[in-house]
């Protein structure tokens, strides 16, 4: 609970309409898109300006009240679940696109701008902002920056961090800072802009964003290839890249995923196949034609049973829509869907996919795998039921083993979802003790009082377990420790 004094100060800053703390309101901000994590905030505020953000942060910092920055709440790492209570700061009102600079090819906008709205606005001018996370129709750019969102065009175009040039930040002390800008080259000091991208709201609040834009590619072709074997599909990916073709998109769906997507989207997927690749190339027309023909050739050489070129834009959009729906369509199978994003260098794609299958069998859990084959970013997705505690325990073990397998292949525990609370226990696997120590010192420099999104990225203890949630005794997990048998993911 916030004190009466803090409550009235916050009310004074944002006004009645944008301060929320009733029973239903708090409950509605106790979760995000991540299954199994829930925790109540003490208040929710929706500031309407950088100055309001600064004023709120000053109050919170002086009184050591946690601040959880939040956009549309569609992240998949529990990044916006207020695990230590405090104030959820929703920045969606800052949703103006201030400028699209066609001379410098940049856009400047508030963190509340919806990703797809930014796409539409720049594409109207023949420009292009490539990152396209699965939730782009509702995800905010502030959230994309916080999590360094990826998407299906990562292979050729990179991810959010490759496009963020400048930021306006509000530090926990209320200072307003401008880092980076429109300069293509800028080595004045540490690159604080890049440091902020993917910092998951643990350092400062982003209040304005300047992003790089590209010219919109002239044309785009979409094709699918179906395979009787997973390895053939994976080998196609490696061979295409080795042939010095970088497609805009190379997406991969395994058979289990195809079945579920077909059931939902009815686009005629041949569900007797073991895997499918969805490949898109964009650019100049002649080049695109040439690449697509070459890719088709390679696909057949590597054992594709059928290759189809989408004949119309409509057909292409339908194929891509099916991939976009994969995650949510999978959720039809069982009540709880846990999606991970273990990532490996792309040369190890087939090996990693096979390992996932072996691990799923070992723990007797149902895992479908799909994802961004071109950048080795897999989404092993487990269909389960959070009410079945015993199964959830096996799911947890399986994922732990999947993370270890990824690391062993030179990969990482998370490619694009972020660490948040869901993977805090595994961070050390990737960055080591010294890495965690340095990261903690960086955080302390920004946020000495530890108010910014506490409980995220860094695990509370050294247990390599997905911490938190469902504490059955009803106490705060931070107040006392449980033995393993009592806690679940």
């Amino acid at each position: 609970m916030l004190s009466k004094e803090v409550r009235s100060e916050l009310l004074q800053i944002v006004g009645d309409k944008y301060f929320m703390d009733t029973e239903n309101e708090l409950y509605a901000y106790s979760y995000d898109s991540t299954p199994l994590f829930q925790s109540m905030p003490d208040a929710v505020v929706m500031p309407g300006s950088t100055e309001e953000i600064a004023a709120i942060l000053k109050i919170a910092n002086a009184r050591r009240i946690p601040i959880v920055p939040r956009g549309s709440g569609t992240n998949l790492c529990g990044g916006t679940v207020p695990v230590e209570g405090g104030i959820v700061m929703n920045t969606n009102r800052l949703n103006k696109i201030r400028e699209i600079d066609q001379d410098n090819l940049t856009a400047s906008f508030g963190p509340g701008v919806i990703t797809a709205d930014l796409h539409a606005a720049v594409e109207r001018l023949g420009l292009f902002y490539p990152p396209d996370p699965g939730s782009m129709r509702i995800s905010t750019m502030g959230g994309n920056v916080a999590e360094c969102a990826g998407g299906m065009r990562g292979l050729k175009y990179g991810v959010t961090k490759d496009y963020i040039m400048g930021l306006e930040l509000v530090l926990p002390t209320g200072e307003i800072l401008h880092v980076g800008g429109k300069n293509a080259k800028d080595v004045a000091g540490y690159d604080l802009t890049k440091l902020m991208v993917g910092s998951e709201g643990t350092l400062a609040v982003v209040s304005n964003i300047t992003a790089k834009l590209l010219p919109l590619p002239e044309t785009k072709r979409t094709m699918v290839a179906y395979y009787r074997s997973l390895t053939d599909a994976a080998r196609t990916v490696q061979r295409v890249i080795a042939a010095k073709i970088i497609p805009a998109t190379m997406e991969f769906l395994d058979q289990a995923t195809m079945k579920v997507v077909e059931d939902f989207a009815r686009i005629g997927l041949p569900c007797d196949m073991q895997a499918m690749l969805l490949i898109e190339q964009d650019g100049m027309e002649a080049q695109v034609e040439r690449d697509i023909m070459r890719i088709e050739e390679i696909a057949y050489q590597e054992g594709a049973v059928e290759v189809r070129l989408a004949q119309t834009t409509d057909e292409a959009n339908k194929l891509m829509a099916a991939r976009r729906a994969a995650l949510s369509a999978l959720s039809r199978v069982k009540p709880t869907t846990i999606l991970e994003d273990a990532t490996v260098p792309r040369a190890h794609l087939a090996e990693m996919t096979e390992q996932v299958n072996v691990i799923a069998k070992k723990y007797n859990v149902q895992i479908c795998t799909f994802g961004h084959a071109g950048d080795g970013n897999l989404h092993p997705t487990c269909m389960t039921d959070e009410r079945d505690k015993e199964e959830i325990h096996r799911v947890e073990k399986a994922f732990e083993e999947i993370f270890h397998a990824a690391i062993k292949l030179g990969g990482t525990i998370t490619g694009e979802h972020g660490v948040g609370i869901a993977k805090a226990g595994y961070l050390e696997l990737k960055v080591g003790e010294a890495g965690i120590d340095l990261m903690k010192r960086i955080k302390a420099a920004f946020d000495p009082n530890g108010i910014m999104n506490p409980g995220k990225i860094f695990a509370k203890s050294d247990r390599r377990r997905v911490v938190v949630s469902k504490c059955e005794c009803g106490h705060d997990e931070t107040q006392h420790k449980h033995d393993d048998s009592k806690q679940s993911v």
Partner: protein
Amino acid sequence: MASGSGTHAASGHSANPGVPTVPGCTDLSLLNKFDMNEIMNCMQCGFCLPACPTYRQTGKETASPRGRIALMKGVAQESLTINDEFEHNMYLCLGCRACETACPAGVPYGSMLETAREVVETNKKQTKGQLLIRKVIFDQVFPSPARLKTAGTLLWTAQATGMQKLAVSTGLVNILPKPMAEMQAAIQTIASPMQRRKRLKIVKSTKPKATLRVGLFLGCMMDVLFYEINQATARVLAKAGCDVEMIENQVCCGALHAHAGEKAGAIELAKRNIEAFERSGVDYLVNNAGGCGAALKEYHHWFHDDPAWMERAMNFVSKQRDINEILTELPPLTFDKPLNARVTYQDSCHLAHGQGIRIQPRDLIKSIPGVTYVEMNRADSCCGSAGIYNITNYEMSMDILDDKMENVKETQPNYVVTSNPGCLIQMKHGVNRAGVSDQMEAVHIVELLDRALS
């Protein structure tokens, strides 16, 4: 320091012995009405948020489908109480079901909302007793065609004697609640009792041999407020080669009851309609109201615990057709009067999201000679009418309508076409409110077709 109110999932609570009973809720068995599997099927992906008109207006999670389902889960798991706030949040929803179209996981939001409202209403009856006005409306007026006719006669008398004008000119209208006063301007001339008495029981096909014998579902609001549209529907169907019967003993479809948490009342009405249909022996029952149509096609959801009625409902459901649907299944209409006009179409939510009928009305409009069809931006987003929402949640409804009118105006139409009585009143009101009634007219699709046919 903030309390750090802890890390818990709601389900942890219900498993906990000794959880205090929910204050304000006298009957915990009420909570069994929630289908936990349906609730759990929402994976909170948030894809529904941009489709939701109330979320777009407020930007608040409590006003979104994902938020409302979370609140239902909270109540079902006894983490939240059934209180005024929960009631407000369940009724702030338009029930437009645009979220169902956006949901890749197939969450049946519409029926979950009906359950939530049923729980709210049952709880209220148990704790507070029912409001008299609600009782009169749902138990007395809607189920009774005779009472509806009386209401129609009263309205007609008011219009015919100029009382409506008088009320406006003398400012008497100002003693009506603001929403009612404003909305009445959008209501058409009511049919006179004489007209109603002269209504034909059967309108014969104008083609030598009728291809189908169909019943016309008259609806409650539709037949009182838009009697002429029902008559036009019969004329259009006759020209399409149908013998059209105004089948006896039909009643209100029950949708308004179901949406307002009055499930028992809705089920009674459904039974009467099923009986009336069975007795009539027609091939299909055709309706011209997207909202009613969606309810008629979902009767089987209301009889889960009653296998005998379930079977009859399934048969009934398979014979329901929306007017747009049946007209595009029949041989094309031959129009003899071109309409030189720009036309745009506003989807009825329960037609588009509830019944998946989107292309048919557009194709019908485009088939009229001389029509230039212009698609508006966000045509399938709710206009804010939503049954009686524009009276119960007037301000939100008008905010949504004002946004809608911006999109309408952009297309510069002569006609804004709808396919549901509630939407029609709302769009007529929107045209008045936006001060563009000299440029455009809001009409039901049947009126447009009828004008090009006669």
